[in-house]
């Protein structure tokens, strides 16, 4: 377990979570969320007022015990956003900077090795100002891996690169991590990138963990309204909790009755927030039977259609639901097949399994933590 | 260089003292190191711990001051008397028996653009110059055109620049700088600056060794007096009566 507990008053930081060892984890958050601070604190480059950071049994910092191991004594590799290559050294010498414990000949051999692993063995004698963005990133990576660290930390590793290089390097990172079975923790503001690469995801906002857990699960089921917003769930609606039984939770959404498969067994407060992915809202053709396996069928009116290249976003208002807009994703072909336009009457289906009930506030944070600890 | 006596002397006696020390070296084979400056500056340096072993001032006031601070060794000796000269640019004052009066008149007519003296605050010759001007009633008129030299030597330096009209400087230095070639050089008798004396006093300082004592004695010898006189200073001997500018 990589255990991270950090507290700081100003700027505010208050996180306490654990990550599994040997996998790729990502911390995602908007700028100012503190994600870089968390990374730097784990690296030992930053001190917070209170901290407890440990990697398995290795305690790296514990303010309670007045213990703090500086960065250069932690077995980790670090790649910053703009790579931090030493401008006066060649690529091989840059990697060699992490191998000062070796003698010169061994050092250059090992450095060449590392460069080969990341695929740029032929650039050993080039200087950083002679390397492209992608090449620089690989040198930085090679340097970070040179000491065979237990933990690899990456701060927005791909944000300084162009789109195609980014895609290529993401694959390579995944490949590397698989091959070396390292623990990797990277920080990014790009949710898609995190979704692609990580097995564990930590959502950070304003110095606090909003939600944390296995990536796929998190992306499908945000736990709070805040998490849903962070993950760009556009459908956020309010309903009244109306009861729970074997089949699930019943909700009154305006005058409409909805069923959600998972949710709290009791709700002290009447109102409950819910969300559903735009790709989980289905358009139902007219000649479908009503009680179908697609879920609750509801009549609605289209209020907006936006076509965007490979997909279309349709906004509808379900009849008698209280006026909240629901959005669904369609392929442009389907759009034309259904002859949809503003004002059209349609039928949509909301499946109980796809309904995600949300906790409104952070009061549920501790409950969340208990749920998502592995 | 240790062991060679370090002697501080007023800038105004530079030419005389340099010649004396050369002669001394010819006669005895011994040498001394000479440092020149305005008497006031040197006295200050001594008060701040300068390693001089003998001090030749251009007046008595600074010697007395140092003695009062307990920084001297033995009684002071008057080795000569300074002579103040008035230099004026060719044709400025014309033939005159009373140069100060002629100067006053010139000042009144506004023909004097620049008048150089050593700084009265710490150079004895400057003090004397000021006293002379005050006594002649020209001080207030002279002030706007005054140029002050940090010591008598610098005053003469300034006088050598083309656009200085009048300078009140020590005679020895004026002659060394050949001021008489560019204008008129006239001696100002003691009476013209009654409140100021230019008794050149010298005194031994703590740290004076045998060699210093010997040079100190030599400075009072007939040889030295002759040299002082040749350079335009008055010497306290019954023989001296005439002055040759």
């Amino acid at each position, binding site marked *: 377990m990589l255990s991270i507990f950090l507290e700081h008053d100003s700027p505010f930081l208050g996180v306490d979570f654990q990550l599994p060892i040997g996998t790729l984890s990502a911390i995602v958050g908007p700028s100012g969320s503190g994600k870089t601070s968390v990374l*730097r604190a784990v*690296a*030992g*480059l930053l001190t917070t007022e209170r901290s407890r950071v440990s990697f398995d049994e290795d305690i790296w910092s514990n303010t309670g015990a007045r213990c703090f191991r*500086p*960065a*250069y*004594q932690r077995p*980790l*590799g*670090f790649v*910053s956003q*703009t790579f*931090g*290559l*030493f*401008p*006066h050294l060649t690529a091989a010498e840059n990697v060699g*900077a*992490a191998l*000062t*414990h070796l003698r010169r000949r061994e050092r250059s051999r090992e450095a060449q090795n590392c460069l080969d692993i990341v695929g740029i063995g032929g650039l050993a004698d080039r*200087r950083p*100002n*002679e390397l492209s963005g992608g090449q620089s990133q690989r040198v*930085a990576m090679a*340097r*970070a891996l*040179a*000491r065979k660290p237990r933990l690899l*930390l990456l701060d927005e590793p791909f944000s300084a690169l162009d789109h195609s290089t980014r895609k290529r390097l993401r694959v390579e990172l995944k490949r590397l991590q698989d091959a070396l079975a390292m623990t990797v923790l990277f920080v990014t503001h790009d949710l898609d990138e995190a979704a692609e690469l990580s097995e564990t995801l930590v959502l950070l906002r304003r110095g606090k963990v909003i939600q944390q857990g296995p990536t796929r699960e998190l992306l499908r089921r945000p736990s709070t309204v805040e998490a849903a917003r962070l993950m760009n769930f556009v459908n956020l609606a309010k309903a009244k909790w109306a009861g729970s039984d074997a089949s699930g939770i019943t909700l009154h959404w305006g005058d409409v009755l909805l069923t959600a498969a998972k949710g709290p067994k009791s709700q002290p407060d009447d109102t409950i927030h819910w969300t559903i992915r735009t790709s989980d809202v289905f358009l139902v053709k007219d000649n479908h039977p009503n009680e179908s396996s697609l879920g609750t069928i509801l009549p609605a009116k289209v209020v907006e259609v936006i076509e965007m290249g490979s997909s279309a976003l349709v906004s509808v208002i379900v009849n008698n639901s209280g006026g909240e807009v629901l959005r669904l994703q369609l392929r442009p072909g389907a759009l034309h097949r259904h002859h949809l336009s503003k004002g059209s009457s349609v039928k949509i289906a909301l499946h109980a399994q796809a309904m995600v009930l949300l906790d409104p506030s952070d009061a549920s944070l501790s409950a969340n933590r208990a749920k998502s600890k592995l | *260089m240790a062991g060679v006596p*370090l002697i501080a002397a007023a*800038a105004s006696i*530079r030419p005389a003292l*340099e010649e004396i020390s050369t002669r001394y070296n010819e006669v005895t084979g011994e040498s001394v*190191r*000479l*440092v*020149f*400056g305005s008497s006031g500056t040197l006295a200050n*340096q001594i*008060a*701040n*711990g*300068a*390693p001089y072993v003998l001090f030749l001032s251009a007046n008595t006031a600074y010697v007395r001051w140092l003695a009062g601070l307990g920084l001297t060794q033995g009684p002071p000796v008057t080795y000569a008397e300074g002579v103040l000269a008035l230099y004026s640019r060719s044709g400025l004052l014309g033939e005159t028996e009373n140069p100060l009066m002629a100067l006053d008149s010139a000042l009144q007519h506004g023909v004097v653009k620049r008048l150089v003296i050593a700084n009265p605050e710490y150079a004895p010759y400057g003090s004397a110059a000021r006293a002379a001007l005050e006594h002649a009633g020209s001080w207030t008129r002279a002030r706007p055109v005054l140029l002050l030299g940090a*010591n008598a*030597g*610098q005053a*003469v*330096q300034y006088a*050598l620049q083309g656009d200085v009209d009048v300078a009140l400087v020590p005679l020895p230095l004026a002659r*060394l*700088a050949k001021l008489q070639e560019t204008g008129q050089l006239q001696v100002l008798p003691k009476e013209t600056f009654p409140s100021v004396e230019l008794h050149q006093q010298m005194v031994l300082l703590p740290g004076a060794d045998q060699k210093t004592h010997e040079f100190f004695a030599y400075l009072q010898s007939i040889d030295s007096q002759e040299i002082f006189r040749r350079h335009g200073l008055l010497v306290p001997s019954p023989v001296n009566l005439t002055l040759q500018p």
Partner: protein
Amino acid sequence: MDWNAFHLSLQLAAWTLVLLLPIGIVTGRWLAKTQTRARPWLQAFFALPLVLPPTVVGYYLLVFTGTRSPIGEFIMSWFGVSLVFSFPGLVVASILVNLPFAILPVQRAFEAVSNELHDAAACCGMTPWQTFTRIEMPLAWPGVLSAAVLTLGHTLGEFGVVLMVGGNIPGETRTLSIAIFDRVQAFDPLAAGRMAGFLLLISLVTVALGYGVLERRGQQRQKSA
């Protein structure tokens, strides 16, 4: 040509450089990296000699370290040296007056070594000392060289503070610049002119050499780009 005076000037320049450069490096680097709120005050303090006339510095040194001052007496009784009218005194004065020349360029050079590089070095396992010798110094040495050249040139020409603190003692504190002044006072403009020309030449060559090295290094970097 007063060779004695020239040797004194050289010695003064050499001693000042040898003693001041380490001070400049340590202070310049500390100023570059510190977060203390007193930083602007400290920078102003070290830049003071730039603004103060050398004679003022000389004056304060005379008053506070002269043989009649408590500091002067202390130093005399403990080390047997006087800090005024002596060569050691000149070195002290010279160091003080040259502080801004030695600190400023070094500070700028270390400031230019970004925090990112520091972080990278630490995460490479480099101790602070290794970071300093392998990363910071190689990147900052042009600044150190600048400081050295400026200090050297400035010391060769120093006058005001040398005159105040050192007097004009031949063989002891009569540096070349003082000797020139002395020759002028002795109505010997020829000798003064000769020495002045010589000093000018030496200073020019020294500074030109320094800048030449810096120039070449800059070109090297450019070529490999």
